[in-house]
């Protein structure tokens, strides 16, 4: 990580610039017929001015003040480039740096190395009342923990601050032999480390919720070995992939701010189980063939995903006693588990086969089949009870549920070349689900789709499609949600509710896209698209989800020296859902119903002009604006509970404006310099984040700043071609 001060950045940048200008042009180093040269060096000096501490501007990038450097180094053998070498470096030393290395011997083998650093900042200046003797141990200071609430609130209000964010460092190395040859082989290695803090929350009860930093130190490592044969009438690919995920932190322990003495029904701390280590082994065989006028594509993939992490005890609270199936008691903080490790495993088998042929000169037929079988073969573990929120033993016996499912897709498509430039196709597809342990065992969705692709002239392209589908299901068994419990429980979800991923529905999907090229200089495109999901047969839950899009784009490129574009896009999404409020038992009173209509309207537009007048100057100006207006409107009949509701008019009102200007001047064939300006203005009025305080309604919150900002980035740069 490099965080230059302004003075240091300017001084170092200017020094390097000066040195490069003074030095004679570096002659390509030649050794045994291999030419190596620095192609370009990019040096920028950035100056960032941001009016708030919001993390949002630099969410996935590092545009902090200082020096930004990039370089391209190329090599080539003297025999016409049979051997090639390239190094590309961008943002050297920065948190979003990217470094590539490629070496290839044409027609024989190649090696590529990619190192990609991706920051992900969640929020700055988060409220941090916790001490951290270890990254996964969050202590509330002893003098404060468990004392009276006013003192805790005062302490929380004056707590330290912490920036929350991750750094992803990705490496990929790949060796290919025989690319574009009959036989090709490849070996790839990938590794990613994620390191930092992410907001997490957990509770000791409704009125005792804490949000705290989750320590992240993940390593994901992968290896792939693959072979490929390409014949004149077909090909075959096969390989093996292994992926391993390791979490350096198995759990995080945090103090209960409101209780310092550990006892049954009085937790002084909680322990949260973090993502378990896991691995995946995958074998694949893929093939394609052309036989007698038919083409075939198919594959068979077997993926075994497993995790055998050691289980934590039921609780960290040493004051709690658990009770076994036989009535015996045990300390819940250290005994009574049926197994020591999870030993969970899911086998996924994928098979697909597509085929197609021409039927005469004008017709074509395509057949598609795919089966995806997710079989969770994890053992069904029985637990005599559990510890609720590290607080007390609950003797509801539980059993783990290895959810499994199979998804089968079939389709047939008939294509008709109406003319040489217009194709019409009619397709029927069916998707079938078969699930274990869920509310719906079987579901089938049939869809008909009509598509048009036309190039009525060289100056126009028209694409249109309309699809309509219907999903039907077997009986909806609300009791399936109780599958965790060993003993009978009464239903507590609304019997009329249909979970939308399993509900019966009607779907309409449509799209029209027109692209026109009235002349070599002009292009115009416009279109609309949408999808309507209608769950009208569901009494409660999601009832409708509709999205519609309109777009327009204009481009003008009169020659190599000028380019102008303008685009606009409007997305309008409406969601409607119906619920009924219940107390301790399910309400049967329609007066307790309530519904919510969610609307999001997002207008995105942009324009840009780039110019290269040919006198050494270049200009590039662009503006992008995304403006969202969201509303949540409630309806509830009088007389029930609830009997009234207040609408939310900021179901995320967000506006982002980004303006970029880049001006360059080519001093000579080797040096280009210029200036860059980026302005961003971001405002968010989010219902879910508005009015948050460090302590509110029994909840200790981090309240990180990822909100409004106005940022101005100014840069000067010089690009050297050497």
């Amino acid at each position, binding site marked *: 990580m490099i965080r230059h001060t302004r003075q240091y950045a300017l001084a170092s940048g200017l020094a390097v610039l000066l040195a490069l200008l003074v030095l004679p042009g570096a002659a390509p180093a030649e050794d045994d017929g291999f030419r190596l040269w620095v192609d370009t060096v990019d040096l920028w000096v950035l100056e960032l001015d941001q009016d708030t501490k919001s993390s949002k501007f630099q969410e996935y990038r590092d545009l902090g003040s200082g020096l930004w450097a990039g370089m391209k180094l190329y090599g080539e053998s003297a*025999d016409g480039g049979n051997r090639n070498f390239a190094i590309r470096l961008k943002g050297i030393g920065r948190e979003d740096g990217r470094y590539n290395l490629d070496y290839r011997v044409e027609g024989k083998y190649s090696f590529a190395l990619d190192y990609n650093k991706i920051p992900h900042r969640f929020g700055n200046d988060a409220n941090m009342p916790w001490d951290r003797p270890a990254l996964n141990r969050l202590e509330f200071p002893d003098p404060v923990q468990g004392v009276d609430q006013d003192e805790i609130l005062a302490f929380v209000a004056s707590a330290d601050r912490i920036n929350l964010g991750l750094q992803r460092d990705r490496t990929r190395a790949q060796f290919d032999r025989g690319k574009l040859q009959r036989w090709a082989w490849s070996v790839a290695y990938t590794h990613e480390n994620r390191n930092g803090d992410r907001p997490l929350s957990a509770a000791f009860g409704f009125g005792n*919720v804490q949000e705290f930093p989750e320590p992240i130190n993940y390593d994901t490592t992968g290896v792939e070995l693959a072979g490929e044969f390409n014949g004149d009438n077909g090909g075959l690919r096969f390989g093996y992939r292994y992926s391993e995920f390791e979490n350096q932190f198995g759990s995080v322990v945090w103090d209960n701010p409101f209780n310092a003495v550990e006892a049954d029904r009085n937790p002084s701390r909680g322990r949260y189980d973090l993502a378990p280590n896991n691995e995946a082994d995958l074998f694949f065989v893929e093939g394609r063939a052309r036989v007698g006028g038919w083409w075939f594509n198919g594959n068979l993939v077997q993926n075994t995903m497993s995790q055998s992490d050691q289980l934590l005890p039921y609780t960290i609270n040493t004051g709690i006693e658990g009770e076994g199936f036989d009535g015996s008691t045990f300390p819940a903080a250290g005994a009574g588990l049926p197994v020591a490790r999870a030993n969970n495993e899911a086998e996924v088998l994928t098979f697909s086969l597509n085929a197609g042929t021409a039927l005469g000169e004008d017709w074509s037929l395509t057949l598609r089949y795919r089966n995806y079988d997710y079989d969770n073969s994890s053992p069904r573990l029985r637990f005599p009870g559990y510890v609720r929120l590290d607080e007390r033993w609950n003797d509801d016996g539980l059993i783990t549920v290895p959810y499994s499912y199979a998804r089968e897709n079939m389709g047939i498509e008939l294509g008709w070349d109406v003319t040489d430039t217009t194709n019409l196709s009619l397709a029927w597809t069916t998707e079938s689900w078969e699930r274990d342990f869920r509310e719906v065992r079987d579901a089938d969705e049939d869809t008909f789709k009509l598509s048009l692709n036309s190039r009525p002239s060289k100056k126009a392209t028209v694409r249109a499609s309309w699809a309509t589908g219907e999903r039907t299901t077997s009986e909806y068994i609300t009791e399936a949600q109780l599958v965790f419990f060993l003993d009978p429980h009464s239903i507590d979800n*609304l019997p009329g509710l249909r979970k939308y991923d399993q509900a019966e529905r009607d779907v309409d999907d449509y799209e029209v896209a027109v692209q026109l090229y009235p002349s070599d200089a002009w292009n115009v495109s416009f279109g609309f698209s949408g999808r309507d999901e209608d769950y009208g047969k569901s009494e409660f839950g999601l009832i409708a989800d509709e999205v519609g899009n309109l777009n327009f*784009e204009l481009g003008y490129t009169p020659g190599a020296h000028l380019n102008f574009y303008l685009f606009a*896009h409007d997305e309008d999404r409406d*969601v409607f859902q119906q619920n009924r409020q219940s107390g301790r038992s399910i309400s049967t009173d329609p007066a307790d119903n309530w519904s919510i209509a969610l609307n999001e309207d997002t207008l995105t537009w942009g324009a840009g002009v780039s110019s290269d007048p040919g006198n050494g100057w270049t200009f590039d100006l662009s503006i992008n604006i*995304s403006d969202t207006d969201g509303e949540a409107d409630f309806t509830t009949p009088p007389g029930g509970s609830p009997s009234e509701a*207040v609408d939310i008019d900021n179901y*995320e009102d967000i506006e982002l404006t980004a303006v970029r200007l880049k001006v360059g001047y080519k001093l000579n064939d080797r040096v280009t310099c210029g200036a860059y300006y980026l302005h961003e203005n971001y405002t968010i009025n989010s219902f879910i984040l508005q009015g948050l305080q460090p302590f509110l309604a029994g909840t200790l919150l981090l309240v990180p700043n990822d909100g409004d900002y106005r940022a101005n980035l100014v840069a000067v740069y010089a690009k050297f071609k050497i």
Partner: protein
Amino acid sequence: MKIRISPTPLLIVAAVLAVGLMLPTAARSSPSEDPGDYVGSEECMACHEGYQEKLAMTPHGKAGFAALSNRGCETCHGPGGKHIEDPEAYQPLILALSPDEQNEVCQQCHAGGTQFFWQGSMHESRDVTCTTCHGVHSYEAEVNQIKAASVQEQCYSCHKDIRAQAWKRSHHPIREGRISCSDCHNPHGAQSPKMVYAASINEQCYSCHAEKRGPFLWDHAPVREDCTACHTPHGSNHLKLQKTSVPYICQQCHSNTRHPGTLYDRTRLADGTNPANREFSRACLNCHSAIHGSNHPSGWALMR
């Protein structure tokens, strides 16, 4: 384990592949092959100045290309003899060919690798050609000879709704250039839904979010089936790429007794008259934060 695949399709595909691979090699032909009419690239460059310079920095201008074909420009454009005789009357332009014929030209060499399943792919069936996205002589991107400045800009030229979504508050780092569309999707075709590289959308997500791969001791059932049941991958106005914001997306399935089925309106927000931590900040996820699954023996309600 439930095996719901009959062995018949497997045998059929194996037999078809075996037969296809054993068939005698059919000579591939360029659009109008006539060996007598080949004139050599030097003849082309005599008029078409500048192309050689552009090609020189691409794989098509390297010695490796020459090792695969000694016909230079005519490898793709076909014999130039007629064109030299009468440049106006006969122009060996790739763009003059039908989409299938254009793609056949490229697939003379590019039939494997990521192009393995081009035949029958969504783009192929929509008459998209290789040259719709790739420029052999003229391109802007640093890699793969993409015509636009980047992979995503190229994709946006048709997928305009995705461009708009990328500007939303919650998004993958695509517009920042840290990942691109082709990190998840294979635009040349795949056997999986939405042309993702992995066998399913979930398995594609696990390639970056491996901590959610499980299987967990306590799984959240829809998570295992489809990440896009709750998340929209290209951009959302809500936190964490949620399709609909919490708590409402949770209430689309959970309207249980007590707090899950409660109406959470303006009054329950943090600055409302009756604030509830089931609505503000992370809403339901304030407590049920292990929403993707829990490995804790006491974590069946996804709270540890």
